[in-house]
């Protein structure tokens, strides 16, 4: 099955990387998270409420909404901070530092013993980041406005994509809930997701990478 891939290319200052990526990923995760499921029987369940909060950015004049979940916020922040740190340490004298970070939603498929369940991505959101430091104050102001406008466009695009209601995994029965949703969060229940990044600028979801990844995951015991 081919995963739906959505890619954004953004140019920003080094200090803005964390907030630009966070505003995109949290907007997606807000749409891709539901309240905690409580199963009454194998097929019957009720869903609890999702709460949301506003996040004001420090380095961009921008506010985004994310799920009110401390653990989710912490996990996403850690991954983005690792990527941002790596990207900002790249020597940008010859060419501006580039990198990509992806938010990948996947579902697990049970495999025969002794193999691990297979992880099948169904939607991947990738942000290609290029660091372009401002030459002067005027340039910084122009770049800042540009980043805000670009982000507004991306947020609109995200809502448009999600409201197309293309493939999303079916609501699972009680025994399969862990194959679709990440049930480890106490307050929300997002679809299973992982965040990965690289600095080459090339997306990780190439056929070769995917095959290698599947082989590696299949063989790992």
């Amino acid at each position, binding site marked *: 099955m081919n995963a739906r891939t959505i890619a954004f290319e953004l140019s920003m200052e080094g200090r803005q990387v964390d907030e630009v990526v966070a505003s995109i990923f949290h907007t997606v995760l*807000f*749409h891709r998270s*539901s309240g905690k499921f409580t199963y009454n029987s194998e097929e019957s369940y*009720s869903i609890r409420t*999702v709460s949301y909060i506003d996040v004001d950015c420090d380095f961009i004049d921008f*506010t*985004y*909404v994310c799920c*009110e979940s401390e653990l989710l916020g912490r996990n996403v922040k850690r991954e983005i901070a690792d990527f941002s740190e790596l990207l900002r340490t790249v020597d940008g004298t010859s060419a501006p530092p580039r990198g990509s970070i992806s938010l990948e939603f996947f579902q697990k498929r049970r495999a025969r013993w002794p193999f691990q369940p297979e992880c099948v991505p169904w939607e991947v959101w990738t942000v290609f980041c290029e660091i372009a430091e401002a030459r002067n104050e005027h340039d910084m102001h122009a770049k800042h406005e540009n980043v805000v406008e670009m982000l507004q466009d991306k947020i609109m695009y995200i809502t448009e994509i999600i409201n197309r*209601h293309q493939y999303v995994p079916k609501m699972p029965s009680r025994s399969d809930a862990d194959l679709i949703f990440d049930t480890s969060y106490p307050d929300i229940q997002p679809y299973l997701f992982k965040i990965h990044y690289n600095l080459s600028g090339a997306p990780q979801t190439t056929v070769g990478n995917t095959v290698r990844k599947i082989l590696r995951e299949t063989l790992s015991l």
Partner: protein
Amino acid sequence: MAPEVAFSNITDKNEFTKFTKFLAYKGVQVIVESRKGVKIEPNSKPKTSDTDWFNLQIPDSSEVNQATKNALPSDRVLETIKSQLHVEISVQTEDGDEMVLELWTLQLDETQFDTSLKAMNTVYFRMGILLKSLITITRITPAYHLSRKQRLESFTIFYRVYSGEAKLKALGDSVKTIQAGLLKTPLGALVFSVTYRTNFSITPNRSDNNKALLLKSDHFELSPKHVIFESKKKKEEKRESKPSGPIDLDKPLRLAAFVDETLVKRTFEEFYTKIPIPDHYRPEKLPVSPVKEKEIMSKSTQELDDSAASKSPNSLEMPPKKFSGFRHENEPPIKLLLFPFADTHPIRELAEFYKDFFNAPHLKLTDELTQSNKSLEPVLEDVELTNEDLSKDLELYENSVVEFDELLADMCRSAEWSGN
């Protein structure tokens, strides 16, 4: 157009209508909440039951619900939404200038339907996602940033819910439209969209229509109105705090306004005839035209007020200090400001001289002399009297010189006798 039999049974259609109604209610709540200017912080919302509509913790303001109810009759939900339901967001400055910022619209577009969506729980789930998109989009339009500033600035954001034709003209010529979300259902697509103005300049609707007032973040911080208001308050305070000192009994009694002067005069005379007072204690005459004096006093206060009102607020607060020439008795003496490394400067010598001159103690007699001519006359009389007494005494003593000589001779003689 959506097919006539979109749903397989009437129950589904009723359920869809109910879901759509609550989608509209919650949608309006989301829009209005986002324009309150309050940032939603963690743990800021009260924990609600787990039966929230669309599994989203959206506030339920009864006032907003009532506004929605008025625009969306329960028996005509789908019909009303087909003809569009709007939430108008406007800003009003404290000067009374008003500007419509954006217009949110919920519409059921019958041309975009999806008959494959039959399960009502999926419709419900997707409506939840539609609301999430609405929540997200409310944060990116310019009105959101403006509303967040309204607690610091002097303007207020208003909302209005209405159905029917959109009043887009109020948004001005320069507008932008964003689709906040679209959900295709068997009856048509439920669409949330926003049209907002991109030109944020207010044209005051008063005398000067040509000048556009740009709504800046710091525009209202120091409005002249505030200054005037503050100065008025201070003025009133000053008037109220006028000290009413103890009554000075030595001063002549003054008559109040509209008092019959002749009657008072007669009463005084009667009093003095009944109870005779030694002449030197009795006042020589009654206050001359006390009413006139009173008038002058009132006038001066009035003048002060008039002149004060015509002046700028700043000059009212700080009246210019005049150099009186001499230090008043109650005025604190001047202190020299000590400037480091300025001891040898010639101007310091002048300052020292001025200080000594200014701080010199007052000569009371000089003061009394300069105060009034009346007070001078008795002093002169006293001096004359003293001189007269002295000359009398001198004359007396001169006449008695022989007696003194005899006395002195007697004293000398008696001394000689005692010496022998």
